[in-house]
Each structure stands twice: as C-alpha cells, then as structure tokens.
C-alpha cells in the first residue's frame, strides 16, 4: 500500500513538474496559461483514474488467481451484500463529486480570458490601451482549406497568425462554408468554427516562438492539409508587421483594380 501511495505521489509530482510528459501522458502545454492549466487539471484526473484502474485490475487478477477451480474447489453461494453495495455506490458517487468540484474550480481561469494588463512593452508599442481587461481581438475565419485572420485596422493574413507576446488575445472564430475546428495544442483547447455562429477563445503568449496546429473537424478531402500556426513576436515587431501587411494588402488591392494586371495571389 505504501509503495502504491509513494509511486502515486512520485508520478504526480513528476507529471506536474516535467514538461517532457506533454504530448505522451499529458496534453500539450507551454504556450499559454490556459493550456498549462488544462494539462495540470488533466494530471490530477489522470492520477485518480490510474488509481481506480489499477485497483480494478489488481482485484480482478487476484480473484482470477486465488479463486481458480484448483485452489478454490467449492464456490461460496453469495448473492450480494447490501452494505457493501451501498458503500461502493456511495464511494463511486463521492469520487465523481470530487472530480466535478476540482474541474469546476479550475474552470474560471481556463475559460475566461486572462484580465491582466498587457506588458509595458505592448502598451508602449500601442498594441492595446493600458489597464486591466484590454485584450487584442483577432477574427479567425475558416474555409476549405485555409484559415484567415483579420486584425484590428483591416490587415489580414492566411494560415499563419502573428500575435504579440505579453498581450491577452481574444479570438472570434467562425466559418464561411463547412464546420472546421481551430486548434493550436500548446495554446489551449479546440473551438469549432461553425457557419452562422461565432465561437470564442483566448490565449496569452509568454514567449516568442511558432506554435503549430491544424484543423480538427473533418471538413472535406483536404482536411489534413488545413494547417494553422501562431507566430509569437515582440509587440514592436507585431506593430511593424501589421503596418507592412496593411501596406502590401493596399498595394495588391490597387494592382487588382488596375485592369491589365492579374489579381493578386489568393
């Protein structure tokens, strides 16, 4: 018993501490705090689940070995035991209540966008105004088989979203044709893009880097090729990228309106 408890504690601390388990025993983490919190909630549930599972398997294997017909030639004719049955029904219900309470208490910080003020660098660069609860809004629009992102001020991009570090980013997700699903594992869970509805999620990058994902709802033949990624950059780089992107869109639009020149890409 002590060994089992010891292993459990070890496993628990190991899993919550080690990033190496992400993607093998735990969900991906390390991009945004909501993904990290999902992974730690998962770790708690996984330990409870493992205890229940090994409890059942140990009881089963013990019963099969101990009460085989050679070692146990006469079967006891027992039809039930009300106290035992009420006991384990209550225990199962209690375990479920514990799981529900743990999940519901962790819920708020996973579901609700981080209200913390943006980093001083982001406020200085003018990405968002100063103060708490000032997120950056980016629209995500799915269509067969590419994601489009619309930024404040009219700029847009495809497939790769550029996002500033240290700012809470809220996403408004929808689709133009069939159902898709937005998912960057390191930045939190999936949110379906369904035509006629707007879905919401958020992330807040702490480190620059590229976070990959892909469409997670069967959307047609090239579903597997509908990739997505988020590139985290410093707020200053983000502002510069946004201006450049807007400039090139305007140039391309102007060229498209001039008759002999063929339309810009996409």
């Amino acid at each position, binding site marked *: 018993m002590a060994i089992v408890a010891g292993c459990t504690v070890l496993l628990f601390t190991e899993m919550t501490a080690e990033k190496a388990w992400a*993607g*093998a*025993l735990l969900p*991906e983490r390390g991009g945004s705090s909501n993904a990290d919190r999902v*992974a730690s*909630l*998962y770790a708690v*549930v996984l330990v409870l*689940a493992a205890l*229940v*599972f090994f409890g*059942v*398997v140990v*009881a*089963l294997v013990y*019963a*099969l070995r101990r*009460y*085989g*017909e050679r070692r*146990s030639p006469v*079967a006891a*004719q*027992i039809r*039930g*035991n009300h106290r035992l*049955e009420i006991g*384990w*029904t209550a225990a*199962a*219900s209690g375990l*479920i209540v514990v*799981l*529900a309470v743990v*999940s519901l208490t*962790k*819920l708020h910080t996973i579901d609700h966008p981080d209200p913390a003020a943006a980093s001083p660098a982001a406020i200085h660069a003018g990405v968002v105004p100063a103060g708490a609860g000032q997120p950056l809004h980016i629209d995500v629009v799915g269509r067969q088989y590419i994601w489009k992102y619309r930024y404040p001020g009219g700029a847009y991009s495809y497939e790769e979203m550029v996002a500033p570090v240290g700012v809470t980013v809220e996403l408004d997700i929808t689709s133009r*044709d*069939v*159902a898709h699903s937005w998912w960057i*594992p390191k930045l*939190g*869970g*999936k*949110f*379906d893009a*369904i*035509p*006629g*509805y*707007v*879905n919401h999620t958020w992330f807040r990058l702490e480190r620059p880097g590229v976070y*990959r994902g*892909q469409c*997670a709802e*069967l*959307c047609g*033949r090239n*579903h*597997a090729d509908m990739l997505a990624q988020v590139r985290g950059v410093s707020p200053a780089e983000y502002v510069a990228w946004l201006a450049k992107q807007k400039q090139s869109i305007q140039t391309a639009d102007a060229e498209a309106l001039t008759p002999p020149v063929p339309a810009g890409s996409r």
Partner: protein
Amino acid sequence: MSVVDQTTRARAAPHAEIIANRVDPPPEGWVGWVRTVDHKRIGILYLTTAFAFMMLGGVEALLMRTQLAEPDNTLLTPQIYNQVLTMHGTTMVFLVVMPIWAGFANYFVPLQIGARDMAFPRLNALSYWLYLAGGIVFYAAVFFAPPEAGWTSYTPLSTGPYIPGNGTDAWIFLIHLTGLSSILGALNITVTIANMRARGMGWSRLPLFCWSLLAQAFMILLTLPVIAGTVTLMLTDRHFGTCFFSPSCGGSALLYQHLFWFFGHPEVYIMILPAFGVISEVLPVFARKPIFGYKAIAASSIGIAFLSTLVWAHHMFATPLTTVVLAFFMLSSMAIAVPTGVKILNWIATLFRGSISARTPLYFAAGFLVLFTLGGITGVMLAIFPIDRQVTDTYFVVAHFHFVLVAGAVSGVMAALYYWFPKMTGRMLSEGAGKVSFWLQFVGFLATFLIQHSLGLSGMPRRIYTYRADTGWGVDNLISTVGAFILAAGVIITILNVLWSLRRGPAAGPDPWKANTLEWFTPSPPPPHNFDVIPRVRSVEPLRDIRHRIASETRSDGTA
C-alpha cells in the same frame, strides 16, 4: 439441495404438451432460410450477415491503418481515405455491432424466458430483411460514389455542394432501413419479454441478458426515430430545397449536431448494454456462483439507459455553447460512471470466492473487464469539458471509443459466441484456438489503441489521411498499425475456429457449461418449437434448480 418440496418432485415428471395442431417441417435448403420465421434461424441469419460485414469493416480499418503507418503515405488518396473511414464507421455501427446483438437477442431471448418463438415472428423476419436491404443499399454505393462525410455526416459538409455524387443519400437510406429494422426488433423484444415469460418468471427472475436488452430496446425506441427524422430533413435539404441545416438560407448547422448526438450517444449504450448482459450471464456460470447483486445490475442497466438520453452535448463541447449547458452535460456525463462502476464492481465481486473455470468465454469476459474499465475511465476524463477540448476530435477520442466498442462490445460478442456456439450448433468451439484468439486480440488491441491516446495528446487530429514527418507521429502510428494486424489475426482465428468446429467440433450436449438459464434446458441445437415442456421457474437460475432436483432425485432413487 437437501430439501426438495415434495409436491415439486411429484410434478417433476414431464407431461407432453402439444401446442400446435399441425407442424410443417421447415423447407430444406436455402428456401427454408429465406422463408423462415423461426427466431433461431433469423438469429443465425443476423449473425452470419453481421460477421460478413465485420470482415468488410475490418478490411477498411486495415486500409486506414496501412495508410497511416508512415508519414506522407500515398497509398490512399484523400478522397478514398474519407470514403473508407465513412464506410468503416457506418459499417461497424449499423451493420455489425447492432445486428450482432439483434442476432443473439433473437436466438436467446425466447429460449431464456421459456418461449417457443418471438411475439411477432413475421415482423421478426421483416426486421432482418430490412437490415440486409440497408446493408446492400449502402454497399452498392461503392460502385458509384461512396459517402465521405464520416459516419456522423455533419452538415453543411453533407448537405452543401462540397461532396460530389450521391453517396450521402446511400448513407441516409441505410439509416432509414436499418433504423426501421432496429425499431421493429426492439418492439418485438419488448413485447416478447413482457408477455411470453415462462410460468414463475417474475421480473426479478428475468435473466440479466434480457434485462440489458429491455434497456437497449427502450433506447432504440426513443432515439432511432429521432435519427430517422433527422436524416429525412437532411434528405429534403439535399434534394427538395428545404433549409433545416444550411446557414446560408436561415438553417442551423448546430441543430443537426444536437439531433445527431441525441441519437448518437444512446447508440453507444445500444451497442454496449447487451455486452453487459452477456458478461452478467457468463461470469456466474464460470465462477460457479450466483451473480453478485442481481437487482443492482438490472437497475444499473435501466439507469444507464435513462442517463444516456441526457448527455448528448458532451460530443459538442468545442461548439459554441454557454457555460451552464457545458456544466450540465459535464455533470450528467460523469453521473453515468456511477451505474457503470457499480456493474464492474458487482462483476468482480461475482468472481470473489467462486470456483473459476477458466474457459474461453471467461477469458473474453475478463478481457472485457480490464479494457472496458479503461475505456470507461477515459470517458470520465472526456466528460470534463476543458480537458475534452484538448483531446476531442483527436486520436485520444478514437482510442477511447474503440476501448468501449471494440474492447467492450466486441469482447462481449466474442464471449457470447464462445458461450452460446455449442447451443446454436451442438458442437464445442476449440478451446486452444479460442485462447490463442483471445490473446492475439487482447495484445493486438492494446498495441493498436493504447498508443493512440498519446498520439491524440500530442496533437494528431482524427480523420486525417496523412501527416507530415516533422510531426513526430510516425513511430506511434507504426506501432498502432502492427497492432491492428495482430488484432485482425486474432479475429480470423476465431472465424476459422467457427468454420472448423461446425463440422469437427466435439458434441456439446444440452448443457456443456452447467449453466443457469433455460436455453440450456433444450437440446443443442434446439428443435423448431424449442421446448417440449416449459419448466416452471422458481429462481434466477432455473436450470441450476433443475440440475439440483435431478441430482437429489437420482440420489434418493439410488438409495431407495
């Protein structure tokens, strides 16, 4: 054992009961099979047809696993891959698992309750032929344009102009035909169990397999009409200009998902509850001990059937839903773990202090307990919606529902096959081949699906025809593919075992397992009218009572 009621003993001598005025011998050959309204022949028709479809569904599974064995594979085109995945899911759900249970239910419900046939024999035959028609309509699409929107056929992908060809219509007609088949079958089972039980078989003496089928029939009657109506709306959207599910003209794509899963989640229990029933029959027989907590097991089947209609939106946690709705469906989904957990504990308690005879049906029942418990536990994890959003629509979910439906439902099917084959054919299956088949299936299953949890956690979505090498998913997928072939080898050994034992298996006699229920009172295979005499039922284990009575009478005769 020791005290036998004197009046009972006096009445034990069988009197011939002639029920029919005129009994035509059944026609010989295939005409006999086509014209039959005998529940046992219809049961065998269901089982053989469903096992044939299982071969097709299995080949489709292996095609997908082969395609995914290495990154950037080009064995299947994206179009073919989507067709194969749609055929695989639809086949396994509607043409394999549901009809296999219909087959066992047909064969064994009348025998277990001491009836001479189902309540409506002709309706019973109609159910089978509707099922076969559904399968033929669906597979005919292979020669034209197979459906490719997945077994869920989400709108707008299935209703809009996104998939050329009319494969989705074949899928719709499959739902109509097999759905009607299941609804009629469920009515028949309910009426049969309600009205045709042997004298003395009160509700608290009904075999647990029959209890699980009653709960299943309740779910079928409640939810199959919903999916039939839903796909009819889809049909009119596709061809007659209506707009139930298309957002472009005011319909709702999300409405379809709600309607589909209102059917789709109970469907999971429709497939697994009869397996629960089989496990509840097999464990007491091979542990030589009464089932532990008969009433708790029967009641938990009803509880699961009731709760199953209240959990559908846990398949939709990633769609736009308000937090209250999410929390409700999280709690209701978790609640199902309680009756399910009670069953598992009762089953294990049935083994404790028994005298376990380790025959093949018990192997499959024990394998079921291990693997289904794991699938049930990942189900609770999926009920927690922040976690669900990370793992839904990934290989984690694929692993979860294969633990429930392959390790659960199919292990139950295997246990049922090895348990009841002697009754159906009069011959025993080979124990040695059965155990080899079990271990190949057990190890192959774990190799295929355990690793898929990790694939899902590391970001591999389901239903993708390929993946790039830099994702790092190659090794796990290769392991999974190798496991799938081992699993297939295990299933093939069972099928060869069946074919071999049909001719060469040792004679079984009426009651090879020393079982508890009335089907073992008849010769193997049972005659067309099942019972010459229908015994009076005095407990949950009528056949055990009869064995004990015979033993005590022969003993007293010997000493007298």
